[in-house]
């Protein structure tokens, strides 16, 4: 039993109030117990704490340890440059933290948008008198007075109404005016016509209602609560980065401990082992990874914006690429939302009857033709346009109306008709009721059918014929409306303008004459079939969730290629009756359509899909889509038709409301992930030439070939822009022919690690050590001789090692542009940013090697140009070796024919 099912007296009694409203004292008491009628912010993590989190995640902790060790070294052995190193590492932590914090810091405006929808002042009756109070002071039991233009302050049961119509769009997304009256209603609470919901607007008429719930417990508050609390969790990429950092930390710790022990056993001093520990941490940790990922995502979001997909959360760029299911609306997203009359049907097929049908379509219509333009809702406009073109302008005074109502599925008007206008052979003018709507809402009201300008009693044959015609029109993908009329026999009730104008609904909507059918087409967007095919090739399941009937939805689905076999079709009523398990079972079917659904059902579909491990993108435009948009991995709001609340709750806004744009964005997202893998390969390759010098230092008893600051010069300097350039690689066509990335597939998988650590990295390490030893040898160094850090030969040797790494990384950036394809086949010059990155890399290296400031910061010394030339062959060897590996991989390791199976490894080749 709920409040909509009670008689007015019972409602007042339950709420312990009366027709005189509450007393001021009781209102105060209730305010103190129930609190203010307002939308509250859900408690969130304070901003400083959010920033603090960025300084204390796993990667940051490893770096803090590194910095701590550096500061300790400075304290123990001052003047060896460890202070600079400590500060450098701390800077890295802060740079990473600021990058990520800025990315995550987005003002959550969804609640602010919701708050704007509630009114400031309302009229209430208290102590038997009308007064204006602040909306936040409204309490359960208050009697509120509403009239046209007012916003409803809280959920309230109607106890009096005069032609009261409200707009529930902020709550339900359905923009048709809804009648509110006091009669009891036994159906669902949310669909009850005797309840005015908070946040909705009074369109016309007036009424009195008793408030039964306020603030966050209203339906509106429920949406705010869900919007504020539902969290999508970490994005797949964020999860992967967490895993990568943990693996890296583990490797660092094991190496640090193992070689510390080895160093101790072979007689290295504590200081040497200690230095080694710091070096290993700094060399292993990919300091540049987070900023590079962030910048790469930012570039991806810019490319998407050019394709009319506005990304709000950076990580969503990559998440898009991993979606396995897209739940999409139909109207406006799949279709153009441009209604056009395509077919008409009457029982006799005669022109006069069709004209009568069009007269009803023209008069029972809220669209207008003003100044050469049609204005109104797309369906209404299409009907008016078609009628005007066929039978010209019609004028008739509308005396009363019952607006369209999604529960009644029809609208009715009562018009004054002049003699000579009527549909029958004999007529004298008068009042005529016109009705249009869904077949199931109108045919039961009809007792006659219009044939040859005569009212013929409708028999079973004619009824069946009409239903068959209705179905056959729907089967062609048309939205079909049924039209009927009734001549009202005098005496008329005292007429009044507006609302029902003195008529009783039940007395008008009976014994009607069935006039015919009109089929309207909302054509699919031309680019949608191609986009659907792309999704199918890419293994992404597309689920249409529409308010239209199942036949129309099915026909459109067939037209765009979404459905090829016999799909599972679930209608809204059926959906409500189903358990989660039944829905899961149906969702596992290959083709599924949800028809006659309202936006409020979306959240359940999305939740179930997510619980089943799918990565879900969902479209939405209404306020009550907001929780589903938040819950989905990717919430997609419509830029043109979407409400501000939906846009704020979403991760992506479609500037053109077009389904094809989603698919383009998915393609871009997949490309971004692929690019992240490329630069992870690139960054990890340089870890080996950074680690090997330390191992050599410990194991071979040689001077340290690469200082920690020089490692940072590579990780945070020379590598950055080329890595970013890899992030700008364009997605290849092949990307959308693969299934979505398996959630179990790792960013740092074994193949990628093998390629970076055991193939590319060692070549770079050999180059580095060659450069180092070459300079030492030329300088007269003897094996076992230790050199001081400021020894010129030593500084030149470390500079040569660093230069070797930089030169081989230049070749590596080309090598990492693809995993299997030859660089020549993807176009050597197809990514010009690579060359810009390389130019930057070379300039920075020249600065480090030849500028006094560079020398001072990085403990380098200028080297002869001949050394550069000596090192270039290593770059050539790396490049050619990788091309050879790719050739072997293509020829002998690629499965033939290529199979788009989920989980196919696309790792390091």
């Amino acid at each position, binding site marked *: *039993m709920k409040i909509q099912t009670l008689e007015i007296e019972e409602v007042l009694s339950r709420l*312990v109030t009366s027709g005189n409203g509450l007393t001021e004292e009781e209102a105060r008491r209730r305010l103190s117990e129930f609190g203010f009628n307002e939308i509250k912010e*859900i408690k969130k993590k304070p901003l400083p704490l959010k920033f603090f989190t960025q300084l204390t995640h796993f990667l940051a902790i490893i770096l803090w340890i590194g910095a701590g060790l550096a500061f300790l070294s400075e304290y123990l052995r001052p003047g060896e440059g460890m202070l600079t190193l400590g500060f450098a590492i701390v800077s890295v932590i802060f740079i990473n933290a600021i990058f990520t914090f800025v990315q995550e810091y987005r003002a959550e405006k969804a609640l602010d948008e919701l708050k704007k929808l509630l009114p400031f002042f309302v009229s209430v009756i208290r102590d038997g008198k009308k007064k204006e109070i602040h909306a936040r002071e409204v309490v359960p039991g208050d009697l509120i007075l509403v009239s046209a233009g007012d916003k409803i302050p809280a959920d309230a049961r109607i106890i009096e109404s005069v032609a009261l119509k409200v707009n529930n769009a902020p709550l339900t997304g359905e923009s048709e005016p809804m009648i509110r009256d006091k009669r009891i209603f036994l159906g669902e609470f949310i669909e009850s016509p005797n309840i005015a919901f908070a946040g909705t607007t009074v369109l016309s008429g007036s009424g009195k209602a008793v408030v039964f*719930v306020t603030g966050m417990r209203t339906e509106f508050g*429920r949406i705010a609560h869900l919007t504020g*609390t539902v969290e999508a*969790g970490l994005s797949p990429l964020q999860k992967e980065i967490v895993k990568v950092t943990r693996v890296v930390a583990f490797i660092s710790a094991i190496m640090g401990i193992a070689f510390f022990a080895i160093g101790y056993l072979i007689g290295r001093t504590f200081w040497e082992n200690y230095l080694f520990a710091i070096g290993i941490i700094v060399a292993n940790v990919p300091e540049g990874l987070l900023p590079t990922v962030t910048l790469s995502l930012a570039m991806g979001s810019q490319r998407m914006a050019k394709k009319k997909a506005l990304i709000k959360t950076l990580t969503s760029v990559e998440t898009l690429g991993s979606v396995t299911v897209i739940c999409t609306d139909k109207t406006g997203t799949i279709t153009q939302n441009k209604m056009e009359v395509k077919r008409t049907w009457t029982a006799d097929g005669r022109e006069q009857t069709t004209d009568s049908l069009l007269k009803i379509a023209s008069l029972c219509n809220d669209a207008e033709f003003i100044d050469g333009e049609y204005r109104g809702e797309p369906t209404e406009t299409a009907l008016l346009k078609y009628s005007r073109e066929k039978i010209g302008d019609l004028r008739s005074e509308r005396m009363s109306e019952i607006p369209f109502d999604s529960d009644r599925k029809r609208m009715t008007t009562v018009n004054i008709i002049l003699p000579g206008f009527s549909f029958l052979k004999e007529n004298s003018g008068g009042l005529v009721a016109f009705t249009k709507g869904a077949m199931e809402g109108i045919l039961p009201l009809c007792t006659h059918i219009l044939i040859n300008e005569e009212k013929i009693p409708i028999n079973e044959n004619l009824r069946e014929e009409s239903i068959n015609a209705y179905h056959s029109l729907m089967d062609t993908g048309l939205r079909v409306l049924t039209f009927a009329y009734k001549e009202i026999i005098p005496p008329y009730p005292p007429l009044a303008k507006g609302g029902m104008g003195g008529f009783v609904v039940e007395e008008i909507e009976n014994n009607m004459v069935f006039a015919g059918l009109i089929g309207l087409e909302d054509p699919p967007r031309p680019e949608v079939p191609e986009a659907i095919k792309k999704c199918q090739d890419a293994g992404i399941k597309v689920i249409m969730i529409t308010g239209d009937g199942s036949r129309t939805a099915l026909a459109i689905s067939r037209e765009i290629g979404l459905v090829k076999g016999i799909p599972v079709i679930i209608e809204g009523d059926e959906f409500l009756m189903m358990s989660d398990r039944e829905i*899961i079972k149906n969702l596992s079917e290959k083709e599924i359509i949800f028809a006659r659904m309202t936006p409020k059902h979306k*959240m359940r579909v999305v*939740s179930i899909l997510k619980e089943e491990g799918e990565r879900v993108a969902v479209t939405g435009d209404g306020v009550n889509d907001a929780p589903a948009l938040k819950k989905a991995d990717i919430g997609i709001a419509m830029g043109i038709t979407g409400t501000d609340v939906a846009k704020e709750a979403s991760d992506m806004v479609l500037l053109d409301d077009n389904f094809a744009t989603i698919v383009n964005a998915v393609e871009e997202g997949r490309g971004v992930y692929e690019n992240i893998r490329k630069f992870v390969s690139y960054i990890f390759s340089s870890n080996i030439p950074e680690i090997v010098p330390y191992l050599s230092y410990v194991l071979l008893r040689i001077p340290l070939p690469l200082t920690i600051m020089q490692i940072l010069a590579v990780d945070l300097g020379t590598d950055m822009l080329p890595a970013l350039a890899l992030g700008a690689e364009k997605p290849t066509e092949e990307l959308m022919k693969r299934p979505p990335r398996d959630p179990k597939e790792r960013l740092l998988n074994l193949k990628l690690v093998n390629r970076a650590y055991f193939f590319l990295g060692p070549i770079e390490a050999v180059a580095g050590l060659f450069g180092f030893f070459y300079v030492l040898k030329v300088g007269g160094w003897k094996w076992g001789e230790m050199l001081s850090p400021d020894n010129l030969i030593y500084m030149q040797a470390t500079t040569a090692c660093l230069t070797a790494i930089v030169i081989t990384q230049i070749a590596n950036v080309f090598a990492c542009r693809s995993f299997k394809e030859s660089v020549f086949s993807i176009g050597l010059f197809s990514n010009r940013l690579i060359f810009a990155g390389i130019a930057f890399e070379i300039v920075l290296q020249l600065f480090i090697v030849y500028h006094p400031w560079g020398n001072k910061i990085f403990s380098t010394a200028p080297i002869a140009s001949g050394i550069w030339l000596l090192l270039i062959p290593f770059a050539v060897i790396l490049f050619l070796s990788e091309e050879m590996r790719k050739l072997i991989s293509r020829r002998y390791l690629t499965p033939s024919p290529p199979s788009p199976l989920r989980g196919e490894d696309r790792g390091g080749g």
Partner: protein
Amino acid sequence: MYRKILTAVNEHLNSEITARYAMNLARICDAKLYLCFIAERGLPSASLENAEEAMRRIFIEASKMDLRAETITETGDPVRMVSEIVRHEGIDIVFASTRREDVEKRFFAGTVARRLLLTLTSSVALVRVVHIGRIHPKEILVPLKARIDHVEERAYFTAKIAQAFSSKTLLFHAPKPLSRFFHGEIHLSPLEWEKKLPDDIYHFMEHLRRYRVIHDGRMVPGVTGRTITIEASSKRHDLIIMGASERSLLSSILKGNPVEDVLRDTPCDLIILRPGHEDTDS
């Protein structure tokens, strides 16, 4: 189990709604109902009148339901007086509505509700009334911990409330998400989670089956309090029944307190049950 049910009435509307839960429980348990109003000293006369009016209305409603009802009006400290009545009359369960202070004070320390929970020897059902529009709860959400004490009484209470309102019951468990060091968070489907259902919840379900109460189950990993309110909100439950928190103040500060979280953000009425009857097999 419940032969004598007491409901505390005061000048606030909440207590009247709370009394309706008590009345319906009394009806289904064929228990005697005690309507009890304890006037604190210095209570304004208007409040006194309001409370007496409420007592009268509830008594009439109880009579219409053919309940054996008795009214008790006393003056003094509410907690002490109720405690005395409970001992004297042998009350099995006390219904009391939460006050705003219970929601505003952290861990509702020092509030009447907390004192009732700590002092009374009987079972206690604290009712937080937030939605007067849902008069008879049709969908009840019952969040359960992995380890449940007083399983019999909890199941009995849930079953009787469900029977009283012919409600559907959803048993809900919000475990911590699974994670591994290198793997991070591990996703399990609802069916996989079900295999990990704790034994106590199975026992609870067995009891419900014994009472022939229609129930369903669901496990959603996450932060307990928030996951419960999201579930209640998104599925439009009408009532939540959950156990009183057994966490100490320190534990609540360190680990949070799901009961307090739900109390603050519940989208529907909430009953917090502190059972007082020992299990027969314990």
